[in-house]
């Protein structure tokens, strides 16, 4: 077995055996869906004519998937470094790409299950989401989004040395970003300058692309711009991640 497939298998076993984390990873976005569904029931976003729910469904899904990608690898890298597992891998000939690659595949799996579950629930009566005909474009958009946020998570997991600091840094980045990128509230409702600020946030691009693919807001160019933005951020995060990555606590 290759290092990559062995690490993927070990990661998969570790993940499914941790029932609590599995539950909350998938339940978290759904809770937000329910909460926002109750708050904005029956209201429509001005101008666009789309329901609030169709708007927040795309935003909450993007945020949920991005959040899981950042926290997942952030905690894993921090814990593996604290436990000297990274040191052990460092002393083997296995390439770093097999470590990150295995986590990447696992993150894609988590993102897929999250998306299917989330969209499935959002289509139930009461939420009434109707996926747009171009919903299959959600797949490449999500893959790009997970790539970008996984690389952000590598940075977080490399800087942080304790679970508390992973949670602190990741929440500091992801929560304000969720609000400022329009994951929870429509950007239209924000002042102009805040809308401009959102352009420097990777989640804004994921939101726009997911929204266009899943609910049909905007057109194909919105998906294109979203994907281009995500690729840009992925490159930046990739460069920073390569510079901040540490095999051991002391190096």
């Amino acid at each position, binding site marked *: 077995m290759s290092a990559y497939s062995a*690490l993927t298998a*070990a990661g998969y*076993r570790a993940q499914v055996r941790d029932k609590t984390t599995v539950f909350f990873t998938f339940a978290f976005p759904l809770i937000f869906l329910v909460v926002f569904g109750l708050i904005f029931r029956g209201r429509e976003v001005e101008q666009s004519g789309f329901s609030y729910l169709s708007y927040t469904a795309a935003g909450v899904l993007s945020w949920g998937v991005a959040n899981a990608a950042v926290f997942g690898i952030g905690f894993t890298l921090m814990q593996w470094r604290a436990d000297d597992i990274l*040191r052990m891998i460092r002393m083997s000939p296995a390439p770093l790409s097999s470590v990150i690659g295995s986590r990447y595949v696992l993150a894609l799996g988590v993102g897929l299950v999250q998306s299917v579950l989330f969209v499935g629930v959002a289509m139930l009566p009461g939420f009434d989401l109707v996926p747009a005909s171009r919903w299959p474009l959600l797949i490449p958009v999500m893959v790009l989004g997970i790539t970008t946020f996984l690389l952000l998570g590598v940075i977080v997991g490399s800087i942080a040395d304790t679970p508390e600091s992973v949670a602190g840094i990741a929440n500091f980045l992801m929560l304000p970003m969720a609000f400022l990128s329009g994951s929870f509230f429509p950007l239209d409702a924000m002042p102009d300058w805040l809308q401009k600020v959102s352009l420097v946030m990777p989640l804004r691009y994921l939101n726009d692309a997911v929204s266009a693919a899943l609910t049909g807001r905007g057109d194909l160019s919105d998906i294109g711009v979203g994907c281009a933005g995500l690729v840009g951020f992925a490159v930046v995060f990739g460069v920073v991640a390569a510079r901040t990555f540490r095999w051991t606590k002391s190096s």
Partner: protein
Amino acid sequence: MSSTSPTPDHGAQPAVAVSDVTKSYGGRRAVDEVSLEVRRGEFFGLLGPNGAGKSTLVEIMEGLRKADSGSVTVFGESPWPRNTGLLPRMGVQTQSSAFFVRQTVHEHLRTVAALFGADREAVDATLDAVGLGGRHGVRVDDLSGGQRQRLAIASALVHGPELIFLDEPTASLDPEGRRDLWEVLRGLKAEGRTIVYTTHHLDEAEALCDRVGILVAGRLVVTDAPQNLIGTFGATSRLLVPLGRIDERKAASLPGVDGVTVQGGHLVLETRATGQVLAALDPLTGLDGVQTRTPSLEDVYLDITARQTQAQTQTQTPHTSNNQEQQA
């Protein structure tokens, strides 16, 4: 353990060559101009008090740390920066915490084996060798301290490395476990593998090592075979004579006796010339019940480290004297 057998050219090139290596942290020299060669097939013990720089020196040999100055080669190649050509030939004992979470013993070692490209048979064989053969299905989190240590050692051996680094491998083992591991280590040596290990068990170093090096405050004070060290440093033997056979004054006057004390039910004669004293005692008391205690590596070690530490504190200013506490 997989079947990678060590290269047969013993002595052609040392397994590890360390030359004038220095490493400082802040203003403190953790490793101070250390030169050292570990020959192929040799069992080398690195001894020294906590904070003497053993871990740092070993990590420099492993290529985990870069020396500030000096050179290190392993099988003729530099281990730093990460040398993936060299890594499969080396095995490093992991910390007993370095287990993949929520895995069984077998799953963990299988994952480690895959990192090195070793096969599944090697996993079973290695677990048998370290005495975890019956524990395949136990979660790593449920292992006892000794079992965790065995699994950590197995992680270093599973890919059949030529050069093995072990860090206090018997520290949390019970006496039976220690003896079992000695056999594993002797077996590895018999296969021609090179072992570098650190320990605080001096009896163990004496029993297992071809040579030991004693590190005190970053300096390699001495390197030699344990028996040579005991001979050269001339630690004293002690003869225990039951009380009442000979009086203290008379015993002290015997040729070769350096000192006399009373301990328990015995008169203890310290000497560097055991034969001479025994010959003198025989006509006076007879040798029945007389016991001989030969010096051990531990006596030599304590003597050397005490002398070195004393010499260091004399040359150091008071505010720097406790620096070596920092690195355990």
